């Protein structure tokens, strides 16, 4: 059962990620990215991180991607035209990618072959209570600093997006 869910949602994630890269219209890429985020949220649930899974959907898929879709709709971004790409990029692009991936997978398999197995339910420390406890005791300073970071981001976005006063 664990294998089945992992393979299903990993397949959905990889296919959606390929779609993000390959689609020519930005809205199609954005929707495929939402698909990636959704399937990664399910994988988080399988790994026992239930609070982070819900936070992923609320923050990433429900707010950040809405922002992307707003900007694409406001700018009326159309489909990308197919320009001439260089021969090296077209010939070497996919094989180099596959070689790079093969190398990484080999190293991962070598290092982490006996690292452990993931069964659904073997890690119960991902509940909202444990995340909250860790955030407010061990990681209190980074938590407060991120609130200042969000304030800076709000100020930056407002300054950049306002009309010039002449």
């Amino acid at each position: 059962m664990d294998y089945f869910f992992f393979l299903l949602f990993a397949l959905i994630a990889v296919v959606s990620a390929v779609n993000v890269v390959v689609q020519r219209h930005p809205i199609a890429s954005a929707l495929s990215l939402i698909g990636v985020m959704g399937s990664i949220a399910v994988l988080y649930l399988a790994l026992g991180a239930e609070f982070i899974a819900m936070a992923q959907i609320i923050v990433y898929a429900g707010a950040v991607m809405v922002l992307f879709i707003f900007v694409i709709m406001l700018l009326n971004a159309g489909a990308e035209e197919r320009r001439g790409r260089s021969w090296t990029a077209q010939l070497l692009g996919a094989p180099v990618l596959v070689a790079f991936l093969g190398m990484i997978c080999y190293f991962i398999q070598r290092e982490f072959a006996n690292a452990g197995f993931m069964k659904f339910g073997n890690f119960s420390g991902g509940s909202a209570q444990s995340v909250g406890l860790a955030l407010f005791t061990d990681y209190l300073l980074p938590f407060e600093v991120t609130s200042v970071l969000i304030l800076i981001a709000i100020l930056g976005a407002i300054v950049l997006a306002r009309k010039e006063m002449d």
Partner: protein
Amino acid sequence: MVFFIITLIKIAIIAFVLLTVLAYLQWVERKVIAHVQVRMGPSRVGPHGLLQPLADVIKLITKEGVMPPHVNSFFYLLAPFLAVFMALISISVIPFGTQLTVGPYTTWMQLTDLNVGILFILAVSSMGVYGIALAGWSSNNKYALLGGLRSSAQMISYELPMSLAIASPLLIAGSLSLREIVNSQAGYNLGFIPKWLVFAGPFPQIFSFIIFMIAAFAETNRIPFDLPEAENELVAGFHVEYSSMTFASFFMAEYANMVTVCSIATLLFLGGWHPLWPVEYGSNFFAPLILFGAGAICIYHGLNPARPLDRYTLPVFGIVFFGLAGLMLFPPTVPILMPLFWFLAKCGFLLFVFVWIRATLPRFRYDQLMGFAWKGLFPAALLNLLVTGFLVALAS
């Protein structure tokens, strides 16, 4: 294996009941708005217009589904699907009552109890924005695009006060699971005041309740916040290019969202399935009393009929109500039906408030709407959360 079969049966029952309730919610809305406006509402199709939803469904299904050639067809068809999917899936974590024992099997009246249940509801409601945004954009029509963008901006702006208004009772209840939140509201203060979160706790959550209801009106695009989809604004906004079943699915999604937010308000603030006064003082007889009263009214009006057909139909309704009242008095079913009755009564009252406000209030202008969210509700919700947190910390 047994678990799967029981869950499948529960899914079938809840889906069937929910879809019927959505259709008849529209009947209730039309009748209530009509009587507020001193007219009759649907009264021809079936007794008192009760078969009107059936007629509407048949009309919408058999109507020609026009798909204009200038729309982006994949997203045009995806948008109502997304809207309905997100609206219906949030019902899966709502507990309707307590445990139900049939033969050797015991199960809760809830499809699944996630221990981050309330976060699931928030997540699904933030995904509900996509149906409307995609509908507006894919219609390739400037009115639809404006309506879709306005509606999406409204929904994400009101998500903030709604989440903060939900966070305050969670501080008192101490858990994110919906079942635990309702269980923390059991019991009575002083013997007869219920420990619902809207009355009791270190800080009565009446302000959270009001903020949540206002934000819920905006989240579900209901009056007074329905500018993006009103018929006389922007030529009906984001669903102007949709016809027949796709149009119906947007409205089904809106009513399902309404049912969801009323259920969440009932669970978080009004005590879920717990009765208003203790069982020792006779709250188990409230439901049969109301149903007897309804039956008596039906039979009385059946004897002095206002319309010729009422002579036959109203007594039948009266007998049905008497039968339901008798069912509520039957001792083996009382522990199952009573919590369900209280939950449905509270949720139904909140749905009536939704329809009542639709019949009475005018709608906000868009800049007033957004200003109200960011400059009014959001600081109020923050202040409420601050005071609640302070009092909870003092009390523990």
